[in-house]
């Protein structure tokens, strides 16, 4: 990745209009959110791979069983996450 291209191209951000600055901020915010989501997907894939792909690799395709395991894995993980947070909240109330 050439990080030099930005400096080479002689970008002058101060020349951007207020509208463009806001727009740029908004777009960067969107990209950051997308990056966060992708990171979560990587983590979930990691977790659910370990849970659902337990045997050896016999083909490049996921079996129907593995597919439904993966879908359940994601949904239950998110539920577990909410349940943990809820419980933490309760614990905090009892302190």
């Amino acid at each position, binding site marked *: *990745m050439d990080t030099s291209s930005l400096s080479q191209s002689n970008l002058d951000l101060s020349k951007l209009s207020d509208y463009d600055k806001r727009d740029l901020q908004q777009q960067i915010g969107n*990209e950051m959110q997308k990056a966060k989501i992708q990171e979560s997907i990587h983590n979930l894939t990691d977790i659910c791979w370990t849970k*659902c792909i337990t045997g050896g*690799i016999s083909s*490049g395709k996921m079996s129907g069983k593995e597919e439904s395991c*993966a879908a359940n*894995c*994601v949904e239950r993980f998110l539920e577990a996450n909410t349940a943990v947070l809820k419980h933490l909240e309760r614990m905090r109330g009892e302190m």
Partner: protein
Amino acid sequence: MDINRTPPDPKTQIMDQIRQEAALNNARALITKLNGHCFDKCIPSPGTSLSRKEESCLSSCMEKYMGMWNIVSRVYIAQIQKTTGQTGGEGFEGLGV
């Protein structure tokens, strides 16, 4: 890319670069995880070289891991949209690799 064309405005240029770096990070994360998991699955006891069997296992494993990634991505994004009450929009079409 055509080098001779007039450069795009700075905003587009910055966003292009950010998206490109994001895609690269995403690809790197996928490859790292995939390599780790598939090494585990396919090469339980490393020999002096990769056998043909190990190599074909790696290929299948890669395809499978990406299949897994796609399912997880679809289900996860559906869940997010359900909880935020958001319909359509954004369109995270997954990997740009």
